[in-house]
């Protein structure tokens, strides 16, 4: 069958999935965890526990701070030691709840048995409530609260649920591992989301460089026999896993500037989110665990791991457990090498959306910026059809009106332009700033209306 892909732009970085053969291991618990109140898109969560309280794993410790926000649960059992600011990954101060780990006792009503539950609840509101109360957020990177995304505004109908198993970022293997090891749960999760969205068909998209996963998911889909679920093979191409790119590839529809996927009838969820939905609905288990890859080009293959971690575990603890920071590592990244964030502070803790600790060597240090030679490679590479060189110049000139006209707000920050620039111009760094400013202008204008 033909392999699907998006229509414009894109690049082909080496996939470097060195940790793909490493089975998921359960990470032990540290002495203390620090749970961030800001691990989803939207408003900060508000703590509902006080210092000195005893909490069990899976107990709610923070409630949503707004409509777009999420519940946060204690990942461990123990005592709350402090609530206050602490440095996050990027070195910014963020509210954290510090919990001293004592034993590993889970809150009541959580099913921790491994049995697969295939019968899906009938009541749509019950499912949505479970997803909301268990703090499920999108695990593809943006951590958008899932219950909001699965509840389209009136008048909008979901025509297709797309499950994103592309994992187009080099190095990362966590999605690949769960596709292999938790296949059935992911497929049941997809069926649950189908149900919520009114029984629309579901496409599970997986990149061609994961043939084992494709075979496993196909077998599982056939075995479980939910109606309307099919697997599609995607071309290996970055950013195949971008929401808009995936919709283009699977449905051949383009989301217009400023629009949402639901405008073209699409809902895109990551496979890890599907697993979280399964656990939340069928097992009543809150989202306090996820899978992360410890990998990198300077890390020997035998030291690379895929870990099932609890949220709030310090990254330094994981790094230590995995054998310490390797020699020759000059960069540490959380997330993939294309879109991940630099780890400026190893004392930061894991959040719901953590997907990796990536050690990169000297070869990845950016070279000095040269002049633009007008080759146009950035414009060729941009999957959104923008002109990065132009946007950068407009940002430097401070021309906000022209930036909006040239759609700086549509940038998905995939980094293809910067990757393809032969003069090493930090295009994305500038466009990201421009996007922020233009979005501010647009928001201010909408607020006035």
């Amino acid at each position: 069958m033909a392999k699907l892909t998006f229509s414009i732009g894109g690049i082909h970085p080496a996939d470097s999935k060195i940790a793909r053969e490493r089975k998921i291991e359960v990470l032990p618990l540290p002495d203390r965890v620090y749970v961030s109140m800001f691990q989803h898109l939207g408003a900060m969560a508000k703590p509902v526990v006080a210092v000195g309280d005893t909490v069990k794993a899976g107990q709610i410790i923070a409630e949503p701070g707004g409509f777009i926000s999420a519940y946060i649960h204690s990942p461990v059992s123990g005592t709350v030691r402090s609530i206050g600011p602490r440095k996050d990954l990027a070195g910014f101060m963020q509210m954290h709840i510090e919990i001293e780990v004592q034993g590993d006792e889970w809150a009541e009503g959580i099913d921790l048995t491994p049995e697969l539950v295939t019968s899906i609840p009938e009541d749509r509101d019950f499912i949505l409530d479970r997803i909301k109360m268990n703090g499920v957020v999108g695990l593809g990177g943006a951590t958008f609260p899932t219950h909001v995304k699965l509840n389209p505004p009136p008048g909008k109908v979901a025509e297709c649920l797309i499950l994103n198993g592309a994992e187009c970022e080099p190095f990362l293997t966590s999605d690949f591992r769960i596709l292999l090891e938790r296949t059935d749960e992911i497929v049941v999760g997809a069926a649950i989301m189908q149900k919520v969205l009114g029984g629309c068909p579901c496409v599970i998209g997986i990149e061609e460089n994961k043939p084992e996963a494709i075979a496993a998911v196909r077998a599982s889909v056939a075995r479980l026999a939910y109606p309307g679920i099919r697997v599609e093979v995607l071309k290996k191409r970055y950013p195949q896993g971008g929401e808009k790119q995936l919709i283009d590839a699977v449905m051949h529809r383009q989301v217009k500037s400023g629009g949402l996927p639901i405008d073209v009838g699409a809902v895109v969820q990551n496979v890890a989110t599907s697993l979280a939905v399964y656990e939340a609905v069928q097992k009543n288990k809150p989202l306090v665990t996820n899978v992360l890859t410890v990998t990198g080009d300077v890390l020997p293959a035998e030291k690379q791991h895929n870990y099932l971690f609890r949220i709030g575990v310090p990254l330094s603890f994981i790094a230590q457990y995995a054998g310490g920071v390797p020699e020759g590592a000059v960069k540490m990244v959380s997330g993939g090498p294309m879109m991940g964030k630099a780890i400026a502070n190893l004392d930061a803790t894991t959040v719901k959306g953590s997907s990796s600790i990536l050690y990169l060597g000297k070869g990845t240090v950016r070279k000095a910026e040269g002049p633009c030679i007008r080759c146009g490679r950035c414009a060729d590479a941009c999957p959104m059809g923008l002109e990065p060189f132009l946007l950068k110049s407009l940002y430097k000139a401070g021309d906000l009106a022209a930036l909006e006209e040239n759609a700086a707000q549509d940038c998905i920050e995939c980094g293809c332009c910067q990757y393809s620039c032969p003069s090493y111009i930090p295009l994305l760094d500038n466009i990201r700033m421009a996007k922020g400013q233009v979005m501010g202008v647009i928001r201010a204008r909408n607020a006035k209306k």
Partner: protein
Amino acid sequence: MSNTIIWTIVILTVLGLLLSLVLFWVARKFRVEEDPRIDEIEKTLPGANCGGCGFAGCRAFADSAVKAGNLDANYCPVGGNEVMKQVAAILGCEIKEAAPLVAVVRCNGSCANRPRTNEYDGARSCKVKAALYGGDTGCLYGCLGCGDCVAACQFGALSMDPATGLPVVDESKCTACGKCVAACPKRVIELRKKGPRGMRVYVSCINKEKGPAARKACSAACIGCGLCAKTCQHDAITVTDNVAYIDFEKCKLCRECEAVCPTGAIHGVGFPKELDKEAVKKRIAERKEVKNG
């Protein structure tokens, strides 16, 4: 052939004369009466169009001053009192003399004081860097060192010191227009009174973290211990959010705070003599004894 040339010249000359008459008439008919004082004031002003006064340029400044008829809302920091006196003479009004200000970099985070915890290799822009993360040191508040302030300065008064990685202000060139203050995403730069003969004392740190954390990030950070505030006899120092601030209106330049500061975060500049810390400390101790009887 020569006929063509002659005719061309004649026609163009006549056309030119006619059009010039039209233009002359239009210029007369639609002339905008402008106060000649606007031009005069504009000529007096430095003409840097820096915007330091809060207006779009020198012309806008002159325009608003003439319209208002006084100088209550107008002050040219670049020209200073000298220029303002001339402007006042043209308008025939009084001016409020202002003490000259100067840009002050409130950060001690040199490479020696503030070890780098990571290396930044993104776009060389403080704005971009500040949006991305907390910076390449343990300090969230200090100078990022990419030189946005240097780029913003029209007067060439700022330069980066390669040894410390911090910007240096050339006082003779600084006009206190405030461009650098606006350009710094961390608000490290402040406009302070230049002080008598250039003497001034200030806290060269804005780290709001608690003492131990601030100290860990930078050995010359203000740790908010409050010793300076306790020592100050003039009530000029306040400590808010773990960082001390010296009110330059109240400061009497006694330099006692500078002597007692345990981390050396307080700087005194422009003084003819170097501070004898021990002598000042002795003086404070004696005063305390007298007070306690």
